[in-house]
C-alpha cells in the first residue's frame, strides 16, 4: 500500500509541533499521524534530528568581556541630537502643506476675481439643498490654519523629543505664516460657511452691511453661535433648519436677515491684500526647506 507523499503543509505542521507552537487539537492530530503514517513519521524524525544536530553545536563562550569601558561610554554619547530624519519628515510635511496652501491661495485668488451672481438672485434661484461647490476663503483659511497648527504641533513634538532643538528657517517661516494668518483673521470678518438647506420660497432681504452688525469682529468663523454671545457672523453658521427659526437659540432678530446663502460672499479688500503676504510666506517656507539651512538659536 503506497503512502501519501509528505506535503508542505505536513512539513510545516511537524515544524510547529517541534517548536511547541501548536494548539492542543493540532498536536493531537500530529501525534495520531505519527502513529499511523510512516512517511509522516520519517519526516518528523528527519526534522527532529536536524534540530538536535544544530542545537548540539558547541556554544562558544564569549572570548572576552564586551562590557563598555568609561572611555567607550563617553565616546558613545547617549543623548544624541535628533537625527536628520524626523525634522526632514516634518520638513517634507511642511513643504507639502506649503505647496497645498499655495495652490489653494492661487485658486482662491482666481475665484475672487471671477464674476459672481448677486446673493439675492442666488437665493431666489436655489431653493434646493446643495452644498457650496467651491471652497470659500473661509474654508481655505480654516484648512490652512488647521494644517499649519497640526504641523506646528508635530514639529514641536519632534523638537521636544530632541535634546538639542534648533530654530530653522522653516520654523521662522511657520511663525511668520501663523502671525500673518492671525492678522488676517483679526482684520477680516470672514464670511461664514453655511449649508444651504431647503428654504421656503421667499426672497430674503439682503444682508445688512457690516457697519450695521452689532459685532463686526469675529475671531473665528468656526465658533458656533452661543446664546450668551449673539453675533451675526456666528449666527450664519447655524444651519437654517427648515421650520426651525434660529431665534429659538437666542439669535437677535437682526441676525435673521443674515441667515442667507453666503457661500459666494465677496471677501473684504483687506483679505485680498493679505493674500500676497501669505503666499510670500509660504514661498519662503518652501525655499528654506529646499535650501536646508539651519539657524542655531
Amino acid at each position, binding site marked *: 500500500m503506497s503512502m501519501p507523499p509528505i506535503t508542505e503543509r505536513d512539513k510545516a505542521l511537524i*515544524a510547529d509541533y517541534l517548536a511547541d507552537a501548536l494548539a492542543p487539537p493540532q498536536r493531537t492530530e500530529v501525534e495520531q499521524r505519527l502513529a499511523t503514517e510512516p512517511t509522516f513519521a520519517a519526516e518528523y524524525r528527519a526534522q527532529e534530528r*536536524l534540530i538536535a544536530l544544530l542545537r548540539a*553545536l558547541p556554544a562558544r563562550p564569549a572570548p572576552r568581556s564586551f562590557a563598555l569601558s568609561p572611555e567607550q561610554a563617553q565616546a558613545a554619547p547617549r543623548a544624541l541630537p535628533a537625527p536628520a530624519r524626523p525634522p526632514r519628515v516634518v520638513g517634507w510635511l511642511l513643504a507639502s502643506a506649503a505647496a497645498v496652501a499655495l495652490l489653494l491661495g492661487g485658486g482662491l485668488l482666481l475665484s475672487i476675481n471671477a464674476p459672481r451672481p448677486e446673493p439675492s438672485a442666488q437665493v431666489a434661484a436655489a431653493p434646493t439643498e446643495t452644498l457650496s461647490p467651491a471652497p470659500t476663503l473661509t474654508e481655505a483659511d480654516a484648512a490652512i490654519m488647521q494644517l499649519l497648527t497640526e504641523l506646528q504641533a508635530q514639529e514641536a513634538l519632534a523638537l521636544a523629543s530632541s535634546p538639542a532643538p534648533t530654530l530653522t528657517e522653516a520654523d521662522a517661516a511657520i511663525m511668520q505664516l501663523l502671525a500673518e494668518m492671525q492678522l488676517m483673521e483679526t482684520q477680516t470678518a470672514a464670511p461664514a460657511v453655511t449649508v444651504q438647506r431647503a428654504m421656503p420660497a421667499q426672497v430674503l432681504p439682503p444682508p445688512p452691511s457690516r457697519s450695521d452688525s452689532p459685532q463686526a469682529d469675529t475671531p473665528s468663523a468656526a465658533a458656533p453661535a452661543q446664546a450668551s454671545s449673539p453675533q451675526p457672523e456666528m449666527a450664519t453658521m447655524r444651519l437654517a433648519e427648515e421650520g426651525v427659526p434660529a431665534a429659538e437659540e437666542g439669535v437677535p432678530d437682526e441676525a435673521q436677515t443674515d441667515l442667507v446663502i453666503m457661500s459666494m460672499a465677496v471677501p473684504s479688500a483687506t483679505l485680498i491684500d493679505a493674500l500676497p503676504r501669505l503666499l510670500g510666506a509660504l514661498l519662503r517656507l518652501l525655499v528654506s526647506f529646499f535650501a536646508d539651512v539651519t539657524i542655531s538659536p
Partner: protein
Amino acid sequence: MADLTLSDEATLIRQAQAGNLEAFNALVLRHQDVVYNVVYRMLGDDASAQDVTQEAFISAYRKFASFQGGHFRAWVVRIASNQALDVLRRDKRRPAESLDDLADEGDLPLPDGGPTPEQALQSRELQRAIQQCLESLNPEQRLTLILCDVQGMSYQEVADSTNAQLGTVKSRLARARLAVRRCLQAVEELLPAQYRLS
C-alpha cells in the same frame, strides 16, 4: 554573578536607562555569550565576530534611550545581527574558517562519553561542514536558522530579533532547514548515528 530574574533585569534596564553604566554592563555580561555566538555563526570568523559584538553593545548603549521594554536580549540581538548582515552584504564573502577557530570549538556530545582523537577530529570536521552549510544560506535564512535551531529561540523571539512577521520567520526557517538537510546529505558519513537525517 547570581542568577538574575526578570525583575532583576527590569531593574538593571531602568538603572541603565537612567545612565548607570554598571547596570548596562551587567546586562552586557548577561547576554554577551548569546550575542557573540549568533554573530560568530553568521560570520564564521572569530575576529570579525568580536568586532561586531563590541560595536553592537556600543550601539545598544548609544540607543538605549529608545529601548521601550520587552526582551532586552531580542533587542540587542537584533542590533548585532543587523550589523552582521551589513558586514555580509558589504563583504559578500564566505569567511575562511581558521584552524585555530576549530581548535577552540568543543565537541559534539556523543553518547559514549569522552571522544577518542578520531572522534574529536570527526566532530571538528562535522562542525566545519555544518558551518559551511550555514554559510551557503542567504543571510536572512541563515540568521533565522541560527536563532531558532542553534540558539533555541521561540518563533516570536526570532520575529522580534529579525523584525519580521511570524509567517516570514516560519517560511525562512522551512527553506533554511531544507537547504541544510540537502547540504548535510553530502557529509552524512560524518554524522553520528543519532544525528543521521535519513
